[in-house]
């Protein structure tokens, strides 16, 4: 067993883990933060994305012991304490960026990462950047629109509303 400690959603947490414990297992099973999902065992689906020292990574492909001393933000850490959604979460709701919601935590974490790295990215770039996030429901159209609108909202503070037909 190894003693680890890290900051998760702004709070310092610690635990005793086996070296083979994945970060996602530590987050879900030790910390009880089950918003981060596991959708595959091949590191390909992206459902497990969290922010690790400010960047999107797959929490299923890093050991908890490697993350000792790091800062992690999970989907639970995005909304304000009073429940106000993060602009990207609001955009996913407005643009129907989800159906069953399984892929959504990973999608949103990567979407925020894209918006920070590539503000104003065009549709083609957003589609390329979402390459590592698989959705089995939506067909991606709503997700891509949500990422672009959420990205705009993160810059301007105003979420462009979807045209309703």
């Amino acid at each position, binding site marked *: 067993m190894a003693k680890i400690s890290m900051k998760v959603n702004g709070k310092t947490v610690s635990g005793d883990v086996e070296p*083979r414990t*994945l970060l996602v297992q530590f987050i879900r099973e030790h910390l009880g933060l089950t918003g981060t999902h596991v959708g595959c065992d*091949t590191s390909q689906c992206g459902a497990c994305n969290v922010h690790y020292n400010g960047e999107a*990574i797959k929490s*299923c*492909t*890093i050991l908890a012991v*490697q993350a000792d001393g790091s800062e992690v933000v999970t989907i639970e850490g995005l909304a304000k304490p009073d429940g106000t959604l993060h602009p990207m979460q609001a955009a996913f709701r407005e643009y129907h960026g989800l159906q069953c919601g399984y892929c959504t935590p990973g999608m949103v974490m990567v979407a925020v990462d894209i918006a920070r790295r590539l503000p104003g990215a065009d549709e083609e770039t957003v589609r390329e950047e979402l390459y*590592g996030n698989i959705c089995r429901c939506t067909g991606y159209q709503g997700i891509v629109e949500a990422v672009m609108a959420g990205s705009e909202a993160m810059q301007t503070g105003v979420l462009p509303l979807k045209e309703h037909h």
Partner: protein
Amino acid sequence: MYSFEYRRAQSVAEAAKLIKEVDDGKILAGGMTLIPTLKQRLAQPSDLIDLGKIPDLKGITLSGKTLTIKAMTRHFDVATSADVKKAIPALAVLAGGIGDPSVRHRGTIGGSTANADPAADYPAGIVGLGATIETNQRKIAADDFFTGLFETALEPGELIIAVHFPVPDKAGYIKFAHLASGYATCGVMVSKTGTAVRVGVTGAGPSAFRVPEMEAALAKSFTPDAIAHIKYPPDDLLSDMHAGAEYRAHLVTVMAKRAVAAAIA
């Protein structure tokens, strides 16, 4: 995953010492290949020796005509580096096309090079640009490094420290990506330095290789047309449900032409 001991090395020397001491140790870099392998129980090392916290194993320097990328430098850092974009933009393109953003935030050039996956991108860059692999023991020329399917010239316990790339006059990298995995079904890096041309191919064979006939033709005329008629023999190429050897052989010519077009664009 089978259980193992985890050790965090503070220096290259410590990592080299640890890997010799332990029973059946494995170096852990970005973990983007090793951890999925462990999850599938395809490997059972006794110990993982993590290079992640060694301070002087990361970074990119451009000095004269040599671009040096240290082993633990991530694909993301190579793709976005101003020095790489200035000196060898094709290498930034290559790194930016590996996997997805989350993979690029963790995976490293040292790990990718040591792993020598037949479909990995970096081997084409290393062979096509004529890089030199620096280890904790010696320097290995690109042409001597990739020796077979997942096989390299590295001795047991030998660590990659850095990859040194000579800066070419022109270079281009294009891959035909596997639709699901993103790995190269065939990827070609072409470079021209003075009158010398190199063509490095990944994805098509068991390990990255050069195409001397194309290099000779491109040395005379550095244009896609110069190699349009050159067919690569499919005999020793890979064949699977995604692409047969004949198809991969065809892709070698098509990707090489496109890489030349990218280099002169």
